[in-house]
């Protein structure tokens, strides 16, 4: 991972000094050992702070929405697909961007790291195979594949789709056998079981909207939860309101979600809201053979149609 960090610094310094970009959006070390934070490097000196490791769970595409200047941005495979969606949806122009692609070997699950630690974590080192957690009086090594975020286990595109420069050699893509196992499991339940399952899943939600704010797809000037005339969703933590919020958020992301996992990583209550978005991904893949953000010419799944789309559910 240090090789990635060095390369990102090198590229950033180069494009900043040549004046190709006004700012490089990347990650820097967070105040907690197992977190990183978004960072805007505006000078060569700033660029020294940039890092990349298994704690870079955020999706930086969130920060390029509607920017007018030229930006360099560090993207993982999933983020690059969001960038494609952004370009298609006219949220940024391709020629404003200098894309530093990171061939990604997955991110570490925040909760898994915390569970392993025997105290406060001061640093997390990642060499693509093993993760070393260091803290107050303990040091632990763990295989990276054992602490991966769940979305990284079913990742279909680890290498960036579009980029100007890569921060390392491309990595082999994963071979996934059962991509939607979690969704299938829920679908097998009866209607009442599913209802209870989702009631349980969302019971802790405090409606802080961290998942919405972490998501690059959620850029509407007025979100449906803030609309008041008419008011579609109540603002309380009433069960129905919470479910309506998560349902509609997932629906708005249908055909656009790349399963980057930023929503779950941002959640302070560890709610697995990807059960909703993954269902929409599954439907788009199975019904329309559609994968989000793979090419610049393809509109999102719900923004296009074919004459022979499935019609059986309509009388």
């Amino acid at each position, binding site marked *: 991972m240090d090789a990635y960090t060095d390369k990102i610094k090198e590229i950033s310094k180069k494009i900043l000094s040549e004046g190709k970009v006004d700012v490089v959006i990347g990650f820097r070390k967070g105040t907690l050992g197992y977190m990183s934070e978004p960072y805007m490097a505006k000078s060569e000196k700033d660029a020294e702070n940039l890092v990349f490791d298994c704690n870079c769970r955020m999706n930086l595409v969130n920060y390029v929405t509607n920017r007018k200047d030229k930006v360099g941005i560090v993207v993982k495979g999933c983020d690059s697909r969001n960038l494609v969606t952004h370009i298609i949806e006219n949220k940024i122009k391709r020629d404003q961007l200098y894309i530093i692609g990171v061939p990604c070997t997955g991110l570490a699950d925040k909760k898994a790291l915390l569970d392993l630690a025997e105290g406060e974590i001061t640093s997390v080192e990642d060499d693509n195979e093993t993760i070393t957690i260091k803290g107050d009086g303990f040091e632990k090594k763990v295989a990276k594949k054992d602490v991966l975020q769940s979305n990284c286990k079913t990742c279909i595109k680890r290498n960036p789709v579009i980029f100007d420069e890569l921060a390392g050699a491309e990595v082999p893509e994963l071979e996934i056998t059962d991509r939607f196992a979690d969704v299938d499991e829920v679908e097998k339940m009866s*209607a009442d079981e599913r*209802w209870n399952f989702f009631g349980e899943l969302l019971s802790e939600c405090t409606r802080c909207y961290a998942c919405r704010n972490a998501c690059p797809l959620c850029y509407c000037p007025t979100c449906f939860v803030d609309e008041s005339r*008419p008011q579609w969703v109540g603002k309380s933590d009433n069960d*129905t309101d919470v479910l309506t919020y998560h349902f509609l958020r997932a*629906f708005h992301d*249908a055909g656009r979600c790349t399963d980057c996992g930023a929503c779950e990583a941002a959640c302070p209550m560890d709610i697995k809201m990807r059960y909703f978005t993954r269902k929409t991904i599954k439907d788009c893949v199975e019904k*329309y053979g559609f994968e989000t953000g793979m090419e610049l010419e393809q509109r999102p799944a719900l923004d296009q*149609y074919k004459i022979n*789309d499935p019609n059986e559910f*309509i009388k």
Partner: protein
Amino acid sequence: MSEFEPKIITFLCNWCSYGAADLAGVSRFQYPPSMRVIRVPCSGRVSPKMILSAFRKGADGVWVSGCHPGDCHYISGNYYARRKFDVLNEMIEYIGIEKGRLHFSWISSAEGVKFAAVAKDVIETVTKLGPAKKFIKKLPEVA
């Protein structure tokens, strides 16, 4: 106890299905009176928000009807609607609302007979399921 009569919110597109409802009425076709019709310009206008809103406020069923594919007054509104409804329909079932509360149909303005038949079918299906219990927003009970 009197027999359960469901409340069904029906979204009809102005150009086809609303005309069909009109024709069914003018032709005196009989169907149960359990639905409340909302006229929309196109089935593509119907947003998931509206459908969820109906359920939240206690509708026992929702039925959306538009022009046949290829006949849309706005050329492609119902094609977009079809994709939207397909994903929505899956999601509604996925979260645990019973199959058969949400219905879709294509009915042209010449199909008064089909309108009455589908209306009967929708109302029967929802009546069998009984009153909706899920996804209704209840106000907190104050002692």
